[in-house]
């Protein structure tokens, strides 16, 4: 009889330990540096490729393009980028001066295996009449998603740094 009760208890308790439904985690891009521009710049337009124009996070592998199932952006990607740019170049918030438009063509990790690969960022930037295409590749080896996000942030940091020097040269 006691054994039966024990079994019932164990069975009931096991219900609490069963695997729970996985939950989604939301992310923003975190930048490490802020830059002071020597001229007034107005962020007139931010466009992203259609497949990035969503809250879902994209990745590529040998099979093609996918969205991560359990991780997403905190808001649609164009807004994430806009917020990051303003964080990085606070003077953009003044909204006056030369027109700066940015078109993000790609920004996603490309997995060569489960943990490794490279993050690719391609963007066309226009400042008044000057146009430049930025292409950044950042190799990563991540053990979990948090580490992957660190590499995503580093890639963006590199882009922002390059963008800063280019803007300064064309001011």
């Amino acid at each position, binding site marked *: *009889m006691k054994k039966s*009760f024990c079994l019932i208890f164990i069975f009931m308790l096991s219900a609490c330990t069963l695997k729970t439904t*996985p939950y*989604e985690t*939301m992310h923003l891009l975190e930048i490490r540096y802020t830059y002071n521009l020597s001229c007034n710049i107005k962020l007139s337009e931010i466009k992203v490729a*259609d*497949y990035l*124009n*969503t*809250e879902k996070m994209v*990745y590529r592998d040998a099979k093609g*393009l*996918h*969205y*991560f*199932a*359990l*991780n*997403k952006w*905190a*808001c649609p990607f164009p807004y994430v980028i806009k917020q990051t740019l303003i964080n990085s170049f606070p003077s953009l918030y003044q909204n006056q001066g030369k027109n700066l438009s940015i078109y993000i063509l790609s920004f996603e990790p490309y*997995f060569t295996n*489960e*943990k490794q690969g490279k993050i690719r960022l391609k963007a066309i930037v226009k400042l008044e009449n000057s146009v430049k295409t930025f292409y950044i590749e950042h190799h990563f080896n*991540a*053990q*979990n*998603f948090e580490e*992957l996000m660190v590499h995503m942030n580093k890639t963006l940091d590199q882009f922002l740094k390059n963008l800063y020097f280019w803007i300064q040269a064309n001011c």
Partner: protein
Amino acid sequence: MLEGRVNYILVGLFILLMIVVSVLTLYIFTKFGKKAEYKKYLIITPESISGLREGAKVYYKGVQVGKVEKISIDPEDQNTVKIIVLIDKKLKVIDGMVATLRIQGITGLSYINIEKKPGFKLGYDEKEKLTIIPMKPSQLQKITSSLPEIIENANKILLRIQEVLSPQNTKKINQLIFKADKLLAELNQAVIETQKFITEGKKLVKVTQNKIKTLDVEKINITIEKYQKVAKTLEKLISQLKILTQNADSNTLPKLNSLLEKLKETSQELKDLSHKLNAEPYSLINIKEIKPHPLEEKR
């Protein structure tokens, strides 16, 4: 107590305790829990809410904040649909929040998305005693509702073109009394615009079909097919219109003029529709979600 002897009072008490615990658990997780954590709101819309079911999820900024409790037709106004939703009390529903209907994945099922849009104000339904969250038509609803209108207009144009090209008129055209230079210039411009309309329409139909097929939204597919037929017929008639512009007479010219005005209107409507699709293309794109990436499962 001797080993192996059963104490029936203890067993009975234990079973009673378990029954009480089970009943309490059921009560807490159904009625009590719901009332404590959720607040009822009302959404009213004259648009179709096909795909939305009772129990469908309600999202705010991608986070699930509630679910649809009840859907019914307003008995006082058969054109209006009333949706009662339960929303997490922690979410402060304030002025400037608006509900839209969105399609979920490839299933064709819909869910409600709450978002912030300046200019919208909450209402109050005295009868239901519930706060009303305003609903704005989603891009998908706009497309479904605007396509039939475009087809209807295109059909009207077809009828007018057939009228103009009747045997009687063709004879008159052949007799050719005079040419109105100004009108001809307008006609030529309209023909160019109509050709753009056809090209744009074809592209739009192709893109829309590719994407909509994955959704299996029957209504849109039927509409697109109908529209495609109309577009093809229009293309044939454009070449005939060109001949007309060179051989028009005083009786036919006013008719042609009004016909081309209609063509211009339809062209504009198609441009608007194309713009809507461009503005929010991802609402129609459905990349099938796969299982989580191995990195996502490692903590």
